[in-house]
């Protein structure tokens, strides 16, 4: 308990009214994005809040560095594979979304902070958009970042970096575009699912369940079906979807024996489905918040 103070002692400086600039709605949204981006990594929070995001970030960068080092040690730049990396880290990306989407939106609802945001000069839909941007930006750190490490490794390890860069730089388009769409895809699903949960734990469970149970159900379905249903079922499986999209993006022919190879769907279908799912989730998510506005 603090020691009792004389009533006047607390305020001895007097009140100064604020005459400085007051920024508009765009600034408020920007502030919310950067604040939420930082809190997605537990900045300014307890060590416990930092632990899972740091672990995931450390893992994906470690994987990228290991791949680059292996390529360097063996002299085989072919070991650096962007598509494989995106496919391999898809589950970690989903895990990141499962743990941080609830931090970004469910905590505000659970603790009542949302009502303070809504009393500020921004709309409820602005809040939703800001949270989406923040989560996508945070996810780019775990998707785009490692890919840039791979790209840099690929260029620097070569005997003539400049020539390699000139040959490789167009890969930056699929690298940026691919990780961006993957991040938006996973983030929008995670946020929509989390927006239905009253507590962070439930929200995380729902997102994890989605990324684990959907594949399980699809595998079951694939075991008992054949033909078109079996071929198209890969589009409902989030991890296969990301894999198929990555193959298409980096112009890789899927191996015959793999699920995606056997499905033999045109690559653009994966892209279309991811784009469509993301759009639907974003619209539904923002709408859920817009209802809060009078």
């Amino acid at each position, binding site marked *: 308990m*603090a020691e009792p103070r004389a009533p006047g002692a607390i305020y001895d400086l007097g009140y100064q009214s604020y005459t400085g600039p*007051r920024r508009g709605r765009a600034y*408020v949204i920007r502030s*919310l994005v950067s604040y939420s981006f930082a*809190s997605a990594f537990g900045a300014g929070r307890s060590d416990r809040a930092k632990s899972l995001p740091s672990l995931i970030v450390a893992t994906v960068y470690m994987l990228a560095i290991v791949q680059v080092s292996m390529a360097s040690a063996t002299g085989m730049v072919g070991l650096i594979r962007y598509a494989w990396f995106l496919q391999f880290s898809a589950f970690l990306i989903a895990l990141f979304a499962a743990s941080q989407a609830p931090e970004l939106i469910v905590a505000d609802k659970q*603790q009542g*902070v949302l009502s*303070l945001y809504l009393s500020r*000069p921004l709309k409820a839909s602005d809040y939703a958009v800001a949270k989406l941007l923040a989560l996508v930006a945070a996810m780019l750190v775990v998707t785009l970042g490692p890919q840039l490490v791979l790209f840099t490794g690929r260029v620097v390890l070569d005997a003539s970096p400049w020539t390699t860069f000139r040959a490789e730089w167009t890969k930056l388009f699929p690298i940026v575009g691919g990780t961006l769409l993957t991040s938006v895809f996973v983030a929008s699903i995670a946020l929509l699912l989390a927006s239905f949960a009253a507590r962070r734990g439930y929200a995380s469970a729902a997102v994890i369940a989605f990324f684990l149970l959907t594949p399980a159900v699809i595998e079951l379905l694939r075991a008992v079906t054949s033909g078109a249903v079996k071929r198209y079922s890969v589009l409902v499986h989030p991890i296969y979807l990301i894999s198929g999209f990555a193959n298409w993006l980096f112009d890789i022919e899927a191996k015959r024996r793999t699920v995606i190879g056997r499905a033999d769907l045109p690559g653009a279908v994966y892209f279309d489905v991811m784009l469509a799912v993301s759009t639907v989730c974003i619209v539904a998510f923002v709408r859920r918040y817009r209802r809060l506005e009078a």
Partner: protein
Amino acid sequence: MPLISASDLTKCYPGVTALDGLTLDVAPGIIGFVGANGAGKSTFIRILLGLLAPTSGSASILGYDVRANALGVRRLVGYMPEHDCLPLEISGTDFVTHMGQMSGLPFGAARERGAEMLRHVGLHEERYRLIGSYSTGMKQRIKLAQSLVHDPRLLLLDEPTNGLDPEGREEMLMLIERTGREFGIAVMVTSHLLGEIERVCDWLVAIDAGRLQYAGSVAAFTERTERLLVEVDDDATAFAARLRARGLGVDARDAVLEIVLRDDAVYDVVRDVAAEHSVPISRLEVARHRLEELFRAPAESTHG
């Protein structure tokens, strides 16, 4: 220009009318907004913040229509909700700074004003602690700090003394009074306890079941509700008649007289009349109708 203006404001929920044709104009100052729980206070505040659309009617704050210009209103208003609204995992200073930015203040200004507001509410030393470790009283005070950080023209405080111990209530009321008097910020404070807030308020708005019961100065309200109870060991009816003859409003109930306490001169009249006729007074007490009693009075009379 009125601070808050409402015109025939009605909000109906299925089966419930939360606000029923509320019309009022409030001048700047400290306004007490009283009513029993569920009387429509929070509904009114949510409409003022543009978070709830009224079924009909309109409202404005400092000339801004709350429907047409909700964001403009929110720039001018600071809001302290009744319920929990604090993130528990960040420090007090980070939270208040962030809330300042959320009202449009640049980072540096938000940080500076945030620190200043935490000092005003007496949380200077605790500012780097996580909010989750704050006591109930400290949480109420940081709620006040975040509502002040952007230097609003009007503060809407929803039941700020709820859940506080008597000492905490006293401190909170002192802070409110200080904010209204010395900071020059208009304050509307809701409470279901009239006695608690009336001494810091200039104006009083009382609602019950969504209907306006009273809007005016605290002094006039006190005049309307304060009673001097007098018990005499003599013929109470005759004494009451003599007091009435001197212009006092008197209700006689058995041996107890209830006299409307318009001003302090009432005491003199009672003393003089009692002395003139040698009426022994056995009890003299200032009492007031409880708020609920005041509200329920018309309903009770219709039900007999």
